[in-house]
């Protein structure tokens, strides 16, 4: 096999297809990578980048398609196969052992003599231009240094194809410069690098070619330099934008949530936003942009260091006084002020999985239902039946353990929990993650009902179509800050991406 230049590409993935229940994650996707090039892989969340890389590293088996290395067809049955053939993946979550030292991590599973390991590890690190003591325990290193150790580990296994997933997400500007220097040196040694990032400006800095995926399909394969505006359009496509709302909010009511110059000890800085009764306001941004951190700070789950949060006219954080906890905010104060959080991980943060639907529904409302402290089983059951009927939760009985429900119905139980608590302002964090299409529409319906009855919703979502289809307005976050606000008329996938990716 050879391409137009008569050179056999190092890696060829052709016609790769992979399905998961209910989703066609990859549909006839191809990717060609030459030795010594940095190949930028671009696409929205869910476009298929991660799945394609999992196929390449042997973690997923494709249903169709072939993989060729140096022109020879190979089968990758396991990550071990891929490693042996010189494919190494550096995920955002490093695969390092925290209490082993640098050399032991580099040679994990391939140990030789101590002296030999340390000498070789030192040599590898020197070629990468860093001076790290190889006897340092890995957990004592910073993120950037751990990343270098991962790269050294890959090189020690003679990796020829290095996949880097969002390598700059946690690095400072200075560290990014040094990473790029290292990547250029690897290129010069003939290593092929598949580089996944949401930061479009990095394309100009290091990419040779760009492959764009959308909805599990190839949409473009371009040589750098590329027009960034064009890339945004390729990623978004000319999709017909559907809406899930019957009607959008035209005349919002009073201010339900007022956040001013909020900063938290999780890094959120100077965030200001308002949500009014009757509105669904989106909080958009890429993974790691700080959306969940902002939501947790508003809810009082993380410590607020400055600024203020006011809900329903009650100051939860910012000024000492009504909030009690010296103005730092707390979930207790938030819930009493009428706030409800529907968290991203409903199984770990939203539900008591082994408890019944009934128990979960009344959990947050116990104070309100039974102010004297006595629990009346019949009253609780009545409330639970009422919520199950109102939200149309599909369960044979209110005694069924929450873990046995489908994802969509579990989510409704979490929402129902806040109904009994009397919440009027809701934060939804990725409300439809892991939920099938039919149930998604139902969740949107619940959200619409909530706001039409005068509640207000702040919704975090990584799915841009959902953001556009459900929200009245949206704030966009980047690097733990709010970088823009989009009204209904300006709210589009392309506009969100431009703000979120730092490409004006």
């Amino acid at each position, binding site marked *: 096999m050879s391409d137009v230049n008569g050179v056999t590409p190092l890696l060829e993935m052709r016609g790769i297809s992979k399905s998961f229940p209910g989703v066609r994650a990859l549909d006839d996707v191809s990717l060609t990578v030459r030795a010594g090039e940095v190949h930028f892989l671009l696409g929205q969340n869910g476009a298929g980048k991660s799945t394609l890389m999992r196929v390449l590293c042997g973690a997923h088996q494709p249903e169709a398609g072939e993989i060729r290395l140096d022109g020879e067809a190979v089968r990758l049955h396991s990550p071990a196969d891929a*490693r042996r053939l010189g494919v190494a993946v550096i995920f955002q979550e490093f695969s*390092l052992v*925290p209490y082993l030292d640098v050399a032991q991590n580099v040679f994990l599973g391939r*140990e030789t003599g101590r*002296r030999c390991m340390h000498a070789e590890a030192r040599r590898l690190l020197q070629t990468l231009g860093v001076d790290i003591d190889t006897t340092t*325990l890995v957990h004592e290193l910073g993120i950037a240094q751990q990343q270098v150790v991962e790269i050294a580990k890959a090189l020690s296994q003679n990796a020829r194809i290095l996949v880097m997933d969002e390598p700059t997400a946690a690095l400072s500007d200075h560290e990014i410069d040094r990473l790029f220097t290292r990547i250029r040196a690897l290129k010069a040694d003939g290593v092929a690098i598949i580089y996944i990032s949401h930061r479009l400006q990095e394309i100009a800095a290091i990419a040779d070619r760009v492959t764009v995926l959308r909805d599990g399909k190839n949409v473009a394969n371009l040589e750098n330099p590329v027009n960034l505006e064009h890339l945004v359009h390729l990623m978004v496509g000319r999709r017909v934008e559907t809406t899930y709302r019957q009607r959008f909010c035209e005349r919002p009511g009073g201010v339900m949530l007022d956040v001013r110059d909020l900063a938290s000890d999780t890094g959120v800085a100077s965030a200001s936003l308002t949500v009014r009764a009757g509105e669904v306001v989106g909080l958009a941004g890429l993974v790691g942009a700080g959306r969940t951190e902002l939501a947790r700070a508003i809810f009082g789950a993380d410590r607020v260091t400055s600024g203020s949060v006011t809900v329903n006219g009650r100051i939860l954080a910012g000024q000492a006084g009504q909030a009690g906890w010296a103005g730092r905010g707390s979930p207790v104060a938030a819930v009493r002020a009428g706030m409800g959080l529907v968290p991203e991980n409903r199984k770990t943060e939203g539900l008591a999985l082994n408890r019944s639907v009934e128990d979960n529904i009344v959990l947050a409302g116990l104070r309100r239902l039974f102010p004297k402290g006595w629990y009346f089983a019949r009253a609780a059951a009545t409330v639970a039946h009422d919520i199950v009927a109102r939200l149309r939760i599909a369960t044979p009985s209110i005694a069924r353990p929450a873990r046995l429900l489908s994802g969509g119905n579990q989510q409704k139980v979490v929402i129902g929990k806040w109904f009994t608590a009397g919440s009027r302002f809701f934060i939804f964090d990725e409300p439809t993650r892991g939920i099938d299409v039919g149930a998604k529409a139902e969740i949107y319906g619940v959200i619409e009902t909530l706001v039409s009855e005068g509640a207000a919703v702040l919704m975090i979502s990584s799915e841009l179509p959902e953001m556009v289809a459900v929200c009245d307005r949206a704030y966009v976050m980047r690097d733990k800050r709010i970088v823009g606000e989009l009204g209904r008329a300006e709210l589009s996938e392309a506009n969100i991406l431009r703000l979120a990716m730092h490409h004006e």
Partner: protein
Amino acid sequence: MSSPPKGGHYRSTSVVSGFSRTVPGAAYLLAPLVVVFAIFGHGFATLPNLLNIGVQSSILLLLSLPMTLVIMTEGIDLSMGAVLSLCGVVMATLLTKEKGLAAGLLAALGVGTAFGVANGVLVVGLGLPPFVATLGTLGIAQGVALVLTGGQSVVGIGDTLPALYAREPLGVPFAIWSATAAFVVFRFALTRTRFVSYASAIGGNREALVLAGVPANLYHVAVYALGGFMAGAAALLLTGRISSGHPTAAIGMEFDAVAAVIVGGTSFERGKGSLGGTLVGVLTIGVLKNGLNLLDVSSSLQVASIGVLVVVALVIDSVLKR
């Protein structure tokens, strides 16, 4: 071997090094304890008493070394005390039947290792929580020991083992030689053969170990098997010391071992651990018990003092971390 490059300092420490890398909170307790007891404890700072502390600590060290590795894998082995009692009973029974010391030791090691492998299979193979799995084998070992003996001591084990136990080559008791040998094997041989590194990796990032092509399950089972094996080895010292077998002789000793390990700076999370720290932890508990004895503190209060020790050591560790 090439010499270290300039700027790069090459220290001959390894991951599970004790004093040089991570000084456990217990080290800050051991020194003051020794000073206090030396001043107020009558006869504390005498050679016979110090050797006595060593002898009293030796069985605990034999259990605490493998317990360190088990805890590094984010597990626990609650069955060690009961398995040790059972191994002692088995050894004593064989000795009363004059089968010879070697046969008795082999049987104890065999029984101990079998329980250790069973723990490993329950935890790794069947995915049971270590706490639950080893609580189950604790009950089984205890029950079997009681059934074998009818609840009575096994006496009349002959002179061979008591004589061996009473030997003091170079003036140092046999028990201390045994414990020292065990520590050397764990701290140096097992660390060099990457067994300890893999235990740390199982707790710290199992996925990384699997991706590196290491049979992680096998090593994980082996860590538990080693715990059982060491309980069998400790039976030699236990039986020698009490010159008999008793079905509940080592009951609850697993808790002292867990205390020693934790006091020594090993953590239940992320594969953090130190065999050197465990040695410090064992000695701290030994010094504390011995010193309180000399000060005529009741044994009930001694139990409480170990609890206080664990809490104080952890507080010191968490303060040092800041």
